């Protein structure tokens, strides 16, 4: 039942937090990654329903990773995580194919709402 989500962020803290939020919202966290490169790798392997990914990461940033994932699967659903003040990067990520974004510090309800919207579940 639970949709499978890949969580990508270079900070373990953020990954843990996002995973906890998702689990409470009945999602299944099927994999984690710490870099853009890992995100692409994991996407190929796991084919998740949703990717939640930070914009700024070492070894291929989030925007590059979105582009790469969209190449693999044009229907991929990617939700970006951004910090305040990264307006331009968010716009770039959306142009690259990201479906929505959430802004840190996270409000659990907003993360879940965005995830459900992107997956079109109510």
């Amino acid at each position: 039942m639970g949709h499978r989500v890949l969580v990508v962020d270079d900070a373990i803290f953020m990954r843990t937090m996002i995973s906890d939020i998702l689990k409470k919202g009945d999602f299944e966290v099927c994999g984690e990654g710490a870099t853009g490169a890992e995100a692409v790798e994991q996407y190929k392997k796991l084919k998740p329903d949703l990717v939640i990914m930070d914009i700024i990461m070492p070894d291929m940033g989030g925007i590059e990773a979105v582009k790469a994932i969209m190449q693999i699967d044009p229907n991929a659903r990617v939700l970006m995580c951004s910090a305040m003040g990264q307006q331009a990067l968010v716009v770039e990520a959306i142009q690259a194919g990201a479906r929505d974004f959430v802004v840190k510090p996270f409000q659990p309800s907003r993360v879940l709402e965005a995830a459900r919207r992107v997956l079109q579940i109510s």
Partner: protein
Amino acid sequence: MDTTKYRDLFVSETREHLVSLNRALLALEKNPDDPALLDEIFRSMHTIKGMAGSIGQDQIAELAHKAEDLLDRLRKRQLKLAQPQVDAIFESIDYLESAVAELAAGRDPQQSLKDKGSGLSKKIEALAVAPQSSKTEASSNVSGGNDFSRINPLKTADSFVYKVRVLLEADVALKSARAFLVLHTMEQFGKIAYTVPERRDLEAERFDRGFSVFFVTNLHSEKEIKSRIGYSEIEDIEIEEVVEETEEEAVERRTVSAFTQLAQERPREVKVSTERLDKLMNLVGELVVWRERLKQLAQMSQNTLIQDSVDQVAQITSELQHQVLASRLVAMSEIFDRFPRVVRDAAKVLNKDIDFKLEGRELEMDRSILQMLAEPLVHLLRNSVDHGMETMVQREASGKRKIGTVTLSAQKVKDQALITVEDDGRGIDHEMIKKKAVEKGWATAEQVSGLSQKQAFDFLARPGFSTAEKVTEVSGRGVGLDVVKSRIESMGGSISIESTAGQGSRFLLNVPLSLAIIRTLLVSARKQVYALPMSQVMETFELKPENVRTLQGKTAIVYRSQAIPVQRLSRALKLETEEGILSGPTVVLERQGSFAAYVIDRMVGQQEIVVKPLSRFLNADKTFSGVAISREGHPMLIVDVNNLET
């Protein structure tokens, strides 16, 4: 003269004129060349002007006068009738309608509609002077308020035009990116003609929460469009199909718009009685207390489902509390703006020339505190003008600028407001205060000689103290600083005085920005829990016996490289007379810039508490500022740090 009677007559008669004005103007719009219509409109305006003038409604008279001028020029064909003029006259009619409604309701439109009236007068005046405005042409393409010159090029045989209004949630971060996401999504299944505000304004975050998109698409389902752009953090999406209207429809729209606008316009502000606000505040206060209790119970239950729900409730309660507190906030300007007049009048009576400066008008604080502040501030300002400021002759003699300066400022310091009344007058001679204190028998000459300036100033706020040489009309006999002091303290604030003889004085008031809920540190002393306002807690630590010294017969510790007094809290609260053991958990408290340490039995925790005032009877020596309910449901006293024994 019975003004009510005339007012009622004015209201009913003006209303009749407004009906005929509306009718004639609508007819004129269709037949711009009919001179009889212009004459009729002109006459009605003229009559309204005359009536308004005679009941003292100058604003209405002024507007009617300006409209009359404009109409006269149109009548004499010095100006050609065009849409801007017609619109402006419609607007004046609307204004007159609302002004009359205000009058009928017993209010004065000169107050309630002041800005609108004068703005409109200026607009009409400008139209009467300017020949044809270049805007006329641009606006001719605008149909139903929608710019079809930008929409039509995008239309195809099977496309539809929609106006999509998007309202973002209240506290959305990265608004521009959110708006971009919506527009980007819409471009996947249609074309955007334009947005309101314009796209560049959306990109630069120059919008509040809402924007409209004029959108051309082949989709013919409002529901489908809505679901496609239904992103997160969007509160509402309204979609309506837009059709270019014909000439007749445009006239129709204008006729109806006056009414529908009134009916649809949602008021941006509503009036709420302060009584209701207080009630709401009390309820939220109770809720906060119970939230704390609930949190504790949930933790004890070790049931994560309950804990999660309680977390949610706690979060909502915090937000509710925040919103209720915010709804009680008003800007300092509410009372500050009365003060220039107070100072001016006082200076005039005393024949002094004073330059009055106001700073921090925009600082917001709880309305009940602000109301309590007004009187003490008037008092301090009058004191400054009267006693603080020298006469012009004296100032010149001592080489000062003839014009004195009095400054009233407000600023936020931590979660308190610091309000300062400062003058560059003669200052306060602390030696004279000491002398006076001895005369009054409050202290011996020996005692006062050891007092600091600051301690000497404390005498100023004692009932019955006055150094003013003569009674003046402005501030009476100089009594009242004691009243000011007790008033400020009763609202949980403090006052201190700084002064340099010959250079000026400064009265500093520290008051809470919001009355109702404060963060506290809970400590126990003699098995009782007491609450200490967090704003005054500097530090907590374990005191070791070897760090306690004795200075001039008093126990002290070194804090921030200065010696500060230390004692057990239970002793300061007069629960015991023994000195007791000076070691263990200790808090350092701050009061008006000086510190003191208190040894407690143990730390209990932190809690947000709702302050309830103590009855005067219970609190004769002012050791406590109020009472609150603990999480366990027991009452506990809030220590008034400013009056705590050192």
